[in-house]
């Protein structure tokens, strides 16, 4: 009788540590680079613009979250009518998504700001209305363009998410006697958002990266502040490097926050 041969137990490959020798060398090189940047470049302008930069970051974040939230609320009906809606409505939603996703955001932004802005100015009715003080400013146009763009991209995601909710769950809800509205509110929407969450995170990061465009229509976000610094100090690289660092941190924070959110939602392991 021979011993039954057993396969050697599976050993997981060693996780790559942060402190492998080559990584320590790379980090050292990186540290030297950072030191050179700090030491040899001009940063004396930084204290003068500290508060303005903080306001700029705030403006960027306000723009990001307000457009993402309102855009998402628009995206839900856009996605829904494409799955269940009557033909004309779903056709309309599809056309909207195709047009917005098929043209550059910068063009849409300029069309709203220069085009619509100049059109509004021609009508005395609009000029005398209570809205005019707002319509004369730039941010409503920036907000609208970013919101519409987010709604179109997210509407496409939500369409897939609504279509992907298993039919059995919806049928079970119907069998419980839920009304259509209750079914949507309790089952369909939460499950669709759950499915769309990873994509939603990615889209929000993309939205953050789209916000500096509004600086081209004179909304002063963090990019606008940095452009101002560049005009004032005639420096090319320093402000841009700082700007890249700021966006890097914002992206990192956003991803980290979404990961916390995702971990809070219980998911049954596949």
């Amino acid at each position, binding site marked *: 009788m021979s011993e039954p041969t057993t396969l050697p137990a599976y050993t997981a490959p060693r996780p790559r540590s942060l402190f492998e020798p080559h990584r320590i060398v790379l980090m050292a090189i990186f540290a030297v680079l950072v030191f050179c940047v700090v030491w040899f470049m001009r940063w004396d302008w930084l204290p003068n613009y500290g508060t303005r930069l903080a306001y700029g970051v705030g403006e960027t974040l306000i723009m990001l979250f307000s457009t993402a939230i309102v855009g998402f609320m628009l995206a839900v009906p856009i996605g829904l009518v494409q799955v269940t809606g009557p033909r004309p409505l779903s056709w309309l939603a599809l056309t909207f998504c195709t047009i917005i996703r098929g043209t*550059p955001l910068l063009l849409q932004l300029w069309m709203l700001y220069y085009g619509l802005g*100049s059109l509004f100015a021609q009508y005395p009715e609009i000029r005398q209305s209570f809205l005019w003080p707002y319509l004369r400013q730039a941010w409503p146009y920036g907000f609208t363009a970013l919101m519409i763009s987010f709604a179109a991209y997210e509407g496409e995601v939500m369409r897939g998410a609504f279509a992907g909710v298993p039919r059995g769950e919806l049928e079970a809800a119907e069998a419980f006697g839920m009304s259509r509205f209750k079914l949507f509110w309790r089952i369909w929407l939460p499950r669709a958002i759950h499915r769309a969450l990873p994509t939603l995170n990615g889209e929000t990061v993309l939205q953050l990266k789209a*916000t500096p465009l509004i600086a081209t229509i004179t909304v002063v976000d963090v990019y606008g502040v940095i452009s101002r610094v560049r005009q004032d100090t005639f420096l090319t690289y320093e402000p841009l490097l700082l700007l*890249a660092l700021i966006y890097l941190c914002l992206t990192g924070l956003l991803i980290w926050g979404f990961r916390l959110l995702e971990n809070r939602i219980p998911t049954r392991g596949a």
Partner: protein
Amino acid sequence: MVAAATQSYLSLLALEPPGWGGVMLVGFIQSLKLAFGGYGLGLLIGIGGACGKLYGGPVLRDLMEVYTTLIRAIPELVLMLLLYYAGTDALSQLLALAGYGSVDINALTAGIFVIGVVQGAYATEVFRGAIKAVPIGQIEAARAYGMSSFQVLRRVTLPAMLPHALPGLANLWMVATKDTALLAVIGFSELTLVTRQAAGSTKAYMLFFLAAGAIYLAWTLVSSLVIRLIEKRARRGLTRTA
């Protein structure tokens, strides 16, 4: 009366000099060149980057990781400004060192470089995922035939991963066409900037922006048609999933 007014309004789009149609057409061709050039460069960087990430040594892998992470975390607009200035600066200093004196770098070349570097990071990720989706047995079989690693790449890995990469690549092409508009902020005369100039000097803002929008839309619609054909061809002989 109204017809005549509409006529003169639309004649702003005429191709001959009083109209701005010709200028916009030139801008559109510049945009096309940027998109094709940048996309092509991005594909090359992507293939190299994916191979580096999958088969390279530890140092190369980490450097590639830094490259893709940085590029994907910073807004395209900021990257383009940085790369545009840094790239042209570095190149002109290099040429000066080599003894060519001061050389003006072609704006188109700089624009293609900028878009290519940005696209390369995304393409790296697309190709990496696609190469990993190729069944390992096919690559092992190719090695067993005695092919060199470059031959394996050219004959087996790249053709076999293409159907997996195409959806991502198609998406990237759409992003590339829309990224060309960002170069308007740097001052490169592509379609969007030219449109704004035409609109500004004629005060017919809506007309020109709508026209440019229609051009972009036609471009993306034609692209998606062509992409569908390519996908159909690349997927021939594969079993249909889902």
